[in-house]
């Protein structure tokens, strides 16, 4: 019998022909149908509706660029845009830093590391609404455990430093901070990806660094960081894309877009309110297009910066 060739190209052994193509098409069909029905068609509809006025009752009215002109002069939209950009600028780097720190801390074998890894990954698996409700309790200014903890050592309801504890749900700055803090615990996916990236790095390069007397900082700066930079870059792009979405449920459940003036109204919440509460689907679609353009611009910018850095 002829021995199989090692490392032979996949193409040479992969069966082809009309029957195989039919089978492949059949297997691909559910994903293709889902992609078309749930992503491409809604995206096309959103693009069309962005240039129309539509309230689900009357047929869509073509309005040209009127929705975009209105968005430019809409103070709430500008606030939502500002909030989203601040959230992305602060939360994305912090989330990546935390995920990286956890991955580097927990990549070694030691007692309790398995439990710690599970604990680090678990919050990302909690349903978003349940997660939001949990934080609603944690952030409660009166009986919430966070403020109770901050009041330890203080008197008359003040912190040990004599300051008023943060008013997470009523102060605009504190509320923005609260939404960012909430996002910092759902880094499970990034943590797992970075943990895997760190675990596959060859141990010999670290042993060589030890023989060469490299310090921990040298090892991180000159070895670990450059070697996992491609993964970090990918996660940075992915998290930036997600950042416009992950703020939605916390803002809706915990702060309800407030406190005034729209301190935690992000683009996603702005779109939701206009579409499903005010039935302004055309206007919401236009805002969605702006969100899309911003995301793509941010991704292109990051990609170019990363390529230049590498």
């Amino acid at each position, binding site marked *: 019998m002829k021995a199989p060739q090692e490392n032979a190209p996949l193409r040479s052994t992969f069966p082809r022909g009309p029957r195989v193509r039919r089978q492949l098409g059949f297997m691909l069909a559910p994903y293709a149908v889902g992609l078309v029905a749930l992503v491409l068609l809604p995206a096309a509809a959103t693009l069309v509706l962005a240039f129309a006025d539509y309230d689900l009752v009357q047929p869509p009215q073509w309005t040209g660029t009127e929705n975009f002109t209105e968005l430019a002069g809409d103070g709430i939209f500008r606030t939502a845009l500002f909030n989203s950009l601040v959230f992305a600028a602060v939360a994305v780097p912090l989330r990546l830093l935390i995920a990286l720190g956890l991955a580097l801390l927990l990549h070694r074998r030691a007692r309790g590391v398995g439990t710690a890894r599970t604990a680090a990954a678990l919050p990302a698996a909690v349903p978003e609404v349940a997660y939001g409700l949990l934080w609603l309790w944690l952030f409660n200014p009166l009986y919430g455990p966070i403020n109770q903890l901050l009041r330890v050592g203080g008197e008359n309801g003040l912190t040990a430093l004599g300051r008023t504890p943060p008013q997470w749900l009523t102060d605009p700055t504190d509320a923005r901070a609260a939404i960012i803090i909430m996002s910092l615990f759902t880094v499970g996916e990034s943590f797992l990806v970075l943990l895997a990236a760190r675990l596959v790095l060859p141990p010999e390069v670290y042993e060589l660094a030890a023989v*060469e007397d490299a310090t921990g900082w040298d090892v991180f700066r000159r070895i670990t960081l450059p070697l996992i930079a491609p993964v970090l870059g990918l996660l940075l792009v992915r998290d930036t894309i997600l950042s416009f979405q992950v703020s939605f449920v916390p803002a809706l459940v915990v702060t309800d877009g407030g406190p005034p003036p729209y301190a935690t109204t992000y683009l996603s919440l702005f779109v939701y309110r206009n579409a499903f509460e005010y039935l302004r689907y055309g206007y919401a679609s236009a805002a969605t297009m702006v969100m899309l353009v911003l995301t793509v611009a941010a991704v292109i910018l990051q990609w170019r910066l990363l390529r230049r850095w590498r």
Partner: protein
Amino acid sequence: MTLSVTGLRVAHGANEVLHGLDLTVARDELLVVLGPSGAGKSTLLRAVAGLTPVSAGRVTIRDRDVTRLRPGQRNVAMVFQSYALFPHLTTAENIAFGLIVRDMPKAEATERARRAAVTVGCGHLLDRRPGQLSGGERQRVALARALVREPDVFLLDEPLSNLDAELRVEMRAELKALHARVGGATLHVTHDQVEALVLGDRIAVLREGRIEQVGTPDEIWHAPATTFVARFIGSPPMNLLPSGGPLSGLAPPGTLIGIRPGALRLGDQGTPARVERIEVVGEDAHVYLRLGEHSAVARVPAAERPASDETHVTVRDGKVHVFDPSTGKRA
């Protein structure tokens, strides 16, 4: 002595891997540690480098006790089996790594890296990254990185085992020439007996965490101290037969005789033997024989291999090694 290992014990949990090794490497000497997989060769190297903690014993380098020092304080350089080159750094940066992390000015480090690269013959590769280098070129870069810091001891962990057969022979010769030129106390670990015989000023044969024999390649080949060394060095391995067996009269009764396959002569005279199979290896033929209830193998010129299943065996004069069957040691 530049490197001295005394009573070295290393344990992985309850399992002791090295059982009190004593070893010395002189200045400019290349000592090859040879043994089968699992003998503890790499563990010995890692213990000397400080990468594996020792449970007992002492490691001294140039009369300085380094047993409790971290790897970076021992002034050793190591070449790993996988070369451990940093994929994101150029050849020059890889070679200069140890100097840069020791805060040497970049210009000086780069110049020293260039000189080391020229010494090992990779001076034209300074701007390339490991992904753009062949196996042999990577090995040169790893050697240059070890040389650049001018360490007290070089530790080489099977540095040729990732190369194909042809390149291995070429690099083996270059490694020997490089050591002759540069010098330095070198501990070289391998499981390849030919590599050990060709490269080593001395060879330490390791078995299950214990040293079986330390000696020059000639001593190891011509006077193996134990039956293990006798059979581990040489291919096909040495034949071991009881002195009272089919080839009797060659040694005192009650001993074990060792005869290298090349020392057996096949012909019309001597002890009758049955040919079980013949392997032709280029110019040579390995003839597997049945001598009564014992087996033996003879190496003869391929053109002179037996034509029939029956032959006769004699032993060349003075080519018999005698061992104590109870201890396995040379009698």
